[in-house]
């Protein structure tokens, strides 16, 4: 295949690069997760399943569960925030659309860290909201707005919501509008038309957006690190800690492998669920 045209060989450097710096390290993590940790944090080359068994410790189970809950809630809130916005943009004139899309995209490119920090300025006890409310005399003591699971969720939705808007916008754009007109001609109310025509037809966008948001939130450690307290640590924080402070690389690897498998499994289930409801609707 590669000999017919020399141009085809141009992909080789990129392929080798990704093989050496992406595929190989991923395999290394998989191997590492079955090895032992030495007394001084070094890796001992002996096979063990202990790292995986340790994950079933209720402590980590709880953190995994919390991470999943936060990731699911982030995805749901992102749909609630993002869908109407994408719908509005898709109804605008072409030139205005481009401006709105750029406006939604710009915050997405701004650093996560900086965007979480922006919320710290607003929510901390001497922050913008508390100072404002105190100066009005509405409250005497600052409200505990930061360093709890609510603030973590807010930060997650804030940083990841743009991921949801663009895929939904794309599917709204590609939608066949004639079906919507047909629904109206048949006497559907706007809500019914939306619920039975528009929403099912833009499912691909919602699924793509949800996967992007979900995958990003499940491994997130910046937002909980900056906006969350000690109790709101997510699995990303635990993994980070195993690699950088606790120096238990095998256990950290096992955690991240489980995290990856879990997110793949959920994505698969999500795909299945949406596919199933699609065929059900198709036959109805």
């Amino acid at each position, binding site marked *: *295949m590669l000999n017919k*045209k020399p*141009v*085809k060989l*141009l*992909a080789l450097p*990129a*392929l080798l*690069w*990704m093989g050496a710096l*992406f595929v*190989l*390290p*991923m395999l*290394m*993590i998989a191997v*590492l997760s079955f090895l032992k940790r030495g007394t001084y944090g070094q890796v001992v080359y002996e096979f063990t399943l202990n790292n995986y068994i340790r994950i079933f410790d209720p402590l980590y189970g709880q953190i995994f569960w919390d991470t999943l809950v936060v990731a699911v809630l982030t995805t749901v809130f992102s749909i609630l925030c993002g869908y*109407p*916005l994408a*719908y*509005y943009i898709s109804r605008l004139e072409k030139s205005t659309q481009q401006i709105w899309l*750029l406006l*939604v*995209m*710009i915050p997405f490119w*701004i*650093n*996560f*860290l*900086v*965007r979480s*920090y*922006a919320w*710290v*300025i*607003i929510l901390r006890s*001497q922050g*913008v909201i*508390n*100072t*404002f409310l105190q*100066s009005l005399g509405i409250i005497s003591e600052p409200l505990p707005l930061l360093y709890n699971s609510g603030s973590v969720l807010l930060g997650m939705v*804030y940083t990841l919501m*743009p991921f949801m808007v*663009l*895929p939904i916008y794309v599917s709204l754009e590609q939608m066949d509008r004639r079906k919507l007109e047909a629904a109206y001609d048949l006497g559907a109310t*706007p809500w019914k038309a939306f619920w039975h025509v528009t929403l099912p037809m833009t499912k691909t966008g919602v699924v793509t957006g949800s996967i*992007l948001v979900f*995958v*990003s939130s*499940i491994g997130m*450690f*910046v937002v909980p690190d900056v906006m969350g307290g000690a109790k709101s640590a997510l699995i*990303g924080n635990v*993994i980070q800690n195993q*690699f950088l402070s606790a120096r238990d*690389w095998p256990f950290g690897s096992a955690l*991240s492998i489980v*995290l*990856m498998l879990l997110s793949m499994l959920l994505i698969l289930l999500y795909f299945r669920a949406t596919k199933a409801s699609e065929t059900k609707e198709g036959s109805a």
Partner: protein
Amino acid sequence: MKTLRRNALSGYSWLMLVFLYLPILILVLYSFNDSRINATWTGFTWKWYVSLFENRQVMQALMNSMTIGVISSVIATVLGTAAALAVKHYSIRWSNIFNGLMYLPIVIPEIMMGLAMLVLFSQVQMELGKVTLILAHVTFSMPYVMVIISGRLADMGKELEEASQDLGATPWETLRYVTLPLIMPGIIAGFLMAFTLSLDDFIISFFVAGPNSTTLPLYIYGLVKRGVSPEVNALSTLLIVSTVLLVVVAEIFRRKDSKNNQSIF
């Protein structure tokens, strides 16, 4: 009823835009606030920016970010462009396999990529520093370059290349005098995107940086962990402004003479 619904939708969308931008604007605003300790506005000042430029650590972090950004995005652009050119000639099956591999880094949690590379570098006993940062940054930005350039190539069609070959140009001549000039705006956009990603990256850099290779986001993280201060606001503002400028310029290049106006993502 219809206008009511329209207004509600439009109001909600504007509210979302405010939600997206208000925190950023507040951060920028407070980088000009004279008061150090609290959120009360006491007057306009440039002094936090001045103190940044007098801070040697900040300047060093800026230099590191620039060096790593330029070198990694040049490599990512060259490799990504070459790969996009090649993949165009693959059969559908092979190009799907290749793209699948190339785009995998985009859907894997960033933290995993960071720690995987940390494991690799420590296994081959490479000292963490600028070199490891450059290697890592190329790896996560190359897929984005490929997406942009493949889009441009798909947009271009095959006609011009075929015409050039019919007129007796060798494949390399066609590449040099027809294809490359045509996709140049895409290449520039890809380069700017790679540079932005590199300048902005925190998570992966966090794992593969050494003590003497602190980049701007890593430096900001160190400050953020110590608490809110006007210097962090000023430094974050500089990072925000440069990111926004780069993204807008990249968008302009990407859309230049292109039929495909879809926003990249």
